[in-house]
């Protein structure tokens, strides 16, 4: 079985999670507890189930030399050097750092919110006249981990020795939507507009009787959306005939939609979305996500035994290769 050594925080942890589920033998070297957006018990169960975990006082170079692949995450470029990364003889080595291994900021101190800010995400989230919002959770690290995993497996596929240098800031910037070309080709800087996608109207978050609902009504869906709202006659309102018109009369439209949704329940809206085939998402809270019949029927969840012995439902792989059955994993303690 191919041996993977995982060193570092949540990005390396996410890469290791993918390796475990692809059938690799993963050993994780623990380097202390990093701040998280959830409890450590949850982070361990989600990321580290199915791995063997060892403490940092083990001879890390020996483990690295015995591995086929190393995924090593460090806070700064120099920390990789201190770990001895360059001397390890592992055929495939992947370094994950906030800014990459070179450049004037390679040793800057970072946290996910500072990288999200520098990478252009934060400027787009939140309301126009208010403080921008950072993204909660571990999107940055998990996406970087997925890139690290892919680079390592691609190198292994090519039967090549490889050293990869992957920066979190660059990972984020590679995932920009249309902001960069909007600037370079149209000279415009995209701003933030709350939950409003802005170029499509309506595309926004609305309160309903017992929660929230997001709608994204590109022109094809305008007529069925009005039927869903129970105001089909609005199709005759010339202000709202085109997307441009709906954008121009955005505030009036918002008021009309808000007035309709506030009388409906989440369940009712979901039923109507299915009936009228309208792109709409009723906001799920965590208990709603866990109870989603769709995910149950698709056998999405894994059973994970936590360190305390409790068994929880954890998301399975985000890709379904030929309907493989989900598997159960245990979260081992550090040895």
């Amino acid at each position: 079985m191919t041996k993977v050594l995982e060193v570092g925080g949540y990005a390396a942890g996410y890469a290791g999670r993918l390796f475990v589920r692809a059938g690799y033998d993963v050993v994780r070297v623990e380097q202390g507890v990093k701040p998280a957006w959830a409890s450590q018990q949850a982070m361990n169960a989600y990321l580290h189930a199915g791995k063997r975990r060892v403490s940092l006082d083990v001879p890390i170079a020996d483990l690295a030399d015995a591995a086929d692949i190393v995924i090593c995450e460090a806070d700064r470029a120099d920390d990789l050097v201190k770990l001895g990364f360059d001397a390890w003889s592992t055929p495939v080595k992947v370094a994950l750092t906030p800014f990459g291994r070179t450049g004037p900021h390679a040793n800057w101190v970072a946290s996910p919110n500072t990288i999200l800010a520098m990478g252009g995400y934060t400027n787009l989230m939140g309301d126009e006249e208010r403080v921008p919002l950072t993204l909660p959770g571990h999107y940055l690290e998990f996406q970087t981990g997925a890139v690290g995993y892919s680079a390592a497996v691609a190198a292994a596929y090519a039967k090549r020795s490889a050293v990869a240098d992957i920066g979190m800031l660059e990972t984020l910037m590679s995932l920009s939507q249309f902001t960069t070309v909007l600037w370079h080709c149209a000279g415009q800087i995209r701003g933030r507009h709350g939950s409003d996608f802005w170029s499509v109207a309506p595309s926004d978050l609305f309160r309903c009787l017992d929660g929230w609902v997001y709608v994204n009504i590109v022109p094809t869906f305008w007529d069925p959306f009005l039927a869903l709202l129970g105001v089909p006659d609005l199709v005759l309102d010339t202000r709202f005939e085109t997307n441009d018109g709906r954008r121009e009369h955005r505030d009036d439209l918002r008021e009309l939609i808000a007035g309709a949704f506030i009388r409906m329940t989440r369940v009712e809206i979901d039923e109507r979305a299915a009936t009228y085939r309208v792109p709409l998402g009723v906001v799920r809270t965590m208990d709603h996500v866990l109870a989603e019949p769709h995910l149950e029927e698709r056998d999405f969840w894994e059973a994970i035994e936590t360190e305390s012995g409790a068994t929880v439902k954890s998301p399975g792989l985000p890709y379904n290769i030929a309907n493989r059955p989900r598997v159960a994993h245990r979260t081992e303690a550090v040895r």
Partner: protein
Amino acid sequence: MTQTAALGPLAGVKILDLTHVWAGPLAVRYLSDLGAEVVKVEAPFGRGPQVFPYAPLGGWLGGEAGDDPWNRNAIFAKLMRNRRSLCIDLKSETGRNTLLELVAEADVLMENFSARAMPSLGLGYEELRRSNKRLIYVTMPGFGHEGPLKERVAFGPTVEAMSGLTEMLGYGPEEPRNTAMALMDPITALNSVAAVVTALQERETSDEGVRIEMSLHEGGVAYSGPWLIDWQLGKPNQSMGNAHPELVPHGVYRCAGADQWLALACCNDDQWRSLAELLGLETSWTRQVRQAHTQQIDAAIDLWLAPLSKQEAAEKLQAIGIAAGPVNTVPDMVADPQVESRGFFVPYERFNTPMPGTPIKMEGVDPDTWSACPALGADNASVLADWLGLSEETIAELASAGVLHDKPPM
């Protein structure tokens, strides 16, 4: 053979790209950066009509529509490097049969149509597999092909609301927000890349192809994993604005100038001592004490930042070991000395338009070998000659029969 593939570890892997919009093309771009040889299979109207009624969302390459506006959509071009374009009418029997012949030569086919589209063209997985049992087939329906939600219309922002993220993002529990960035798309894109390389590696031993289903919905829910586990453990999380459950201070703070901001996080007690000295606060405060003084700390940070630009403030804080970074717009990002020094934005595209590069720096992954987004149908002849060995005469017949195109029909 025309060389358009980069020289990375996936050199020799042949991909048929039938994707559109964002998640699919982004995934294929990543794979092409790693060296895969990609043929973009496009419908005659795949890039829109000959005359555009309005400018595309990301503007035009070169700043104007030109004589071939369908080839100048900047947001499209951004995702389409390192490909050859085959514009073919799959609704014709000849077009469909030609695709099946290409499938026989391919390693991977990726599409992100609705669940019904490929079967309705007679190109469902079983049909494709009959042409090539080693084919890795990637399909990306919003909610998957099975389950009660399979017929629901899915866009990134609507699926995001159903993933758990919208509950956690916002100014507080009563003010949720959506990213309005269709975040499920880049999540699905990178998951797809991981899935394809996994399947390629596994095929080395199985010698069998496989069908991979990507669900936007499951990708989003997977990223909420730790919160979902906490909820079951009786430790529910909630939206905290820019605060962090463990770090104090942690936030986004106003700097000098209009709409200028700085993100800052104090990651441990050592960092706090440095920051407290700078701000004139008590250096001995532990995290628990700092939590009780959040307002006082935030006010001191605001006061210190008020006369400083975001870049100046970040430099000063970094100099004393504090995690800080400016809230960048695109021009800020492009001018960032770190980004410049690593050559992240690369001008391989027409008009020297800078495009985002790849975060993977490894031997063989070389932006100098990248090619610009091809014109629609620019490679019809070379693809059919290289992959299928078709003669010039046969290719000319396909073009005159309306199976191949190099511009959108009138």
